[in-house]
């Protein structure tokens, strides 16, 4: 059976209905455990209690990027293979991704106040996140603005495509423009070198939680969108008949 079978809304609704409870349960469990565990970790000798923010900040930041990636893939699938579910999934992911970006930005800002002595610094990391947030806003606004759903899917797909390229370019441009204060990616560095396991394990759990949460939200929202489309199609047909 090909994976494209799930591009059929009925099959998708059925299959997602089966896995959804598990994902929701996992998401709730991991998020709660990760965040509570993170909240209970001991203070860092340098950053004090503020390390606890990392358990929100990093997973949110990662999911913010991953959500955009997922939207890009889904848009491509729609543009090439014209499966409605993937277009709707891209639409469903955008608000979740935007919220994740917002959380990363806000927790970062709050963290920056004690660490760097400023709420906001035009550091490349932060700046490129701000730009990413703008892309999310534009994408959502375009979906909202276009009435015809298929046209909206096409146009937002194109925007996502071009936008991804330019978001990527912005990332490098911003790096070039200002060398920042933000720490590099520590997770890619050998474990223990920068982050002790006291923080690492709860961070992993929290990241898994955010991932599952994102998945659950996107699935539910996609189901919502499918039902809305179905109802709108039925009503339109009824009106016209």
């Amino acid at each position, binding site marked *: 059976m090909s994976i494209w079978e799930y591009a059929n809304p009925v099959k998708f609704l059925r299959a997602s209905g089966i896995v959804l409870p598990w994902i929701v349960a996992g998401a709730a469990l991991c998020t709660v455990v990760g965040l509570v565990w993170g909240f209970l970790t001991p203070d860092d000798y340098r950053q004090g209690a503020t390390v606890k923010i990392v358990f929100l900040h990093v997973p949110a930041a990662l999911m913010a990027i991953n959500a955009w990636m997922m939207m890009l893939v889904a848009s491509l699938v729609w543009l090439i293979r014209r499966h409605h579910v993937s277009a709707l999934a891209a639409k469903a992911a955008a608000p*979740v991704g935007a919220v994740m970006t917002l959380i990363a930005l806000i927790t970062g800002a709050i963290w920056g106040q004690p660490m760097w002595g400023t709420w906001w610094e035009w550091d490349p990391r932060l700046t490129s996140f701000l730009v990413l947030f703008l892309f999310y806003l534009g994408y959502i606004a375009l979906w909202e603005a276009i009435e015809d759903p298929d046209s909206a899917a096409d146009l937002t797909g194109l925007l996502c495509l071009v936008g991804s390229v330019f978001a990527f370019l912005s990332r490098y441009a911003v790096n070039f423009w200002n060398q920042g204060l933000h720490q590099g990616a520590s997770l890619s560095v050998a474990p223990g070198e920068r982050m002790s396991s006291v923080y690492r394990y709860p961070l992993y759990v929290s990241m898994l939680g955010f991932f599952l949460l994102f998945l659950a939200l996107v699935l539910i929202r996609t189901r919502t969108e499918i039902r809305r489309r179905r109802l709108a199609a039925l009503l339109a047909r009824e009106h016209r008949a």
Partner: protein
Amino acid sequence: MIELGKYATTVLSAYGISLVLLVAIVLQTVRANARARRALEEYDNRG
């Protein structure tokens, strides 16, 4: 109770705002889903 020291407001506000945002998106998602499901069911029952 755990000791947050001088960073109490920082940490608590970070957690607070993030949780509010997460709960908001979750609630919005669930509500919209319930509404869409109900509307479709109503339509189906109507015929």
